[in-house]
C-alpha cells in the first residue's frame, strides 16, 4: 500500500514536472513542418529571411481564442510587412474537439478572413514548445542559423475587451526587438483553454 502511494506520488511529481518543462525565453525554437489550410507544408526554415515569427497556438472552438481572432489579423497587418509574420497553429486533436478539425479550420479561416497561415499540429509540436493553452504566443527571433524564443505568453492584458487594453505585451516585445532594446516582460500568463490531446 505504501509502495502504491509512493509510486503514485512519484508519478504525480513527474506529471507536474512535465507540465513545467516549457521553453524559456532565450531557448532555441524547435523546427516544425506542418500542413496549412491551403494544403501546403510550412516549416520554420521557410521564414529564414524574416526578422522573426509570431507563432500562436490557437484553435477554432476556444472562446478565448475567438476573442483574439480579429486582434491576430491586425497583428499580421501591422507586423507581417515589418518582418514579423504570424503563423497560427491548431494543437487540438479533432477526435476530442470536432470543431477543431482541419476542414473546420479551413471554414473558420475563410469566415474570419485570416491573413496568415493556419497549420494543423498533428505531431504534438506544442509539447516541444511547452504550450499548454489556447491562445499561447511564442515570439521567435531570427538568429541567422536558427530562431530563438524572445517572448512567451499572452497577446495583451485584456482578453475580453480589445478597446480596454493597458499593456500590449506581444507588440511591445516586437518593438523592443526592432529597436534593439531588452524586452520588459519576456513571459506573461493568461486564462485560456487547455490543449485537448490524447497521450
Amino acid at each position, binding site marked *: 500500500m505504501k509502495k502504491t*502511494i509512493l509510486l*503514485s*506520488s512519484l508519478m*504525480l511529481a513527474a506529471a*507536474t514536472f512535465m*507540465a*513545467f518543462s*516549457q521553453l524559456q525565453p532565450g531557448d532555441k525554437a524547435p523546427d516544425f513542418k506542418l500542413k496549412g489550410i491551403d494544403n501546403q507544408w510550412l516549416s520554420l526554415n521557410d521564414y529564414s529571411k524574416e526578422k522573426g515569427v509570431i507563432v500562436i497556438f490557437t484553435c477554432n*472552438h476556444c*472562446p478565448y481564442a475567438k476573442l483574439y481572432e480579429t486582434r491576430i489579423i491586425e497583428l499580421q497587418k501591422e507586423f507581417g510587412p515589418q518582418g514579423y509574420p504570424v503563423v497560427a497553429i491548431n494543437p487540438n486533436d479533432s477526435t476530442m*474537439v470536432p470543431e477543431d478539425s482541419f476542414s473546420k479550420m479551413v471554414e473558420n479561416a475563410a469566415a474570419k478572413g485570416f491573413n496568415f497561415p493556419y497549420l494543423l499540429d498533428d505531431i504534438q509540436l506544442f509539447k516541444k514548445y511547452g504550450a*499548454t*493553452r489556447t491562445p*499561447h504566443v511564442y515570439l521567435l527571433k531570427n538568429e541567422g542559423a536558427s530562431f530563438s524564443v524572445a517572448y512567451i*505568453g*499572452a497577446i495583451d*492584458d*485584456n482578453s*475580453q475587451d480589445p478597446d480596454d487594453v*493597458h*499593456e500590449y505585451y506581444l507588440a511591445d516585445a516586437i518593438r523592443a526587438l526592432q529597436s534593439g532594446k531588452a524586452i520588459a516582460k519576456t513571459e*506573461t*500568463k*493568461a*486564462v*485560456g*483553454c*487547455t*490543449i*485537448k490531446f490524447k497521450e
Partner: protein
Amino acid sequence: MYRLLILVTFFFALNAKSIGQQISKLPIATLQHRVEQASDTIFVVNFWATWCQPCVKEIPEFNKIPASYAGKPVKVIMANLDFPNQIESRVIPFLKDNLVVHEVVAAVTPRGGEWIEKLDPAWSGAIPATIIVHQGKRFFHEGETDYETIKEWINSLL
C-alpha cells in the same frame, strides 16, 4: 388546506432555489489567503467557467467530494472565471440548469496574468485547474480530473 400546503411548499422550494443561485464575488487574493491560512480543513479549489467544456464535464466529479475526508473537514470552492459582466447572463442561468453542490464564488481577478503565477507557479492559466491546500502542503493540477484522482491528491497531502 391542501392547496395552502402546496402553495407554502412551492414558496419554500422557490425560495431555496433562489438562495442556491446567489454567488458571491471574491477577490482572488482573498480566496488565496482564505485557503492558505492555518486550518484543519482540506481546501479544494476548482477554477472553472461556463464556456470551458472540460470544466463543465468534471463538475459532477467535484460534486462527489464529501464534507469530510479521513476525519478532516473538506471545503470545496468552485471558483468561477467567467467574465464579471457575464455572471448574470451566463453563470446564474448555468447554475439553474446544472447541479453544483459546493460553494460557487465569482473570482475577481486583477488585470493581466500575474495573479496566476502568484496562485501557483505551475499554472499556465489554462482551465480547468485545481489546487488542494492542507496545513501548508499543496497540490496543483492543470487540466481535467475525476473523483478517484482527487482522492489520491488529497491522500498525498494527509
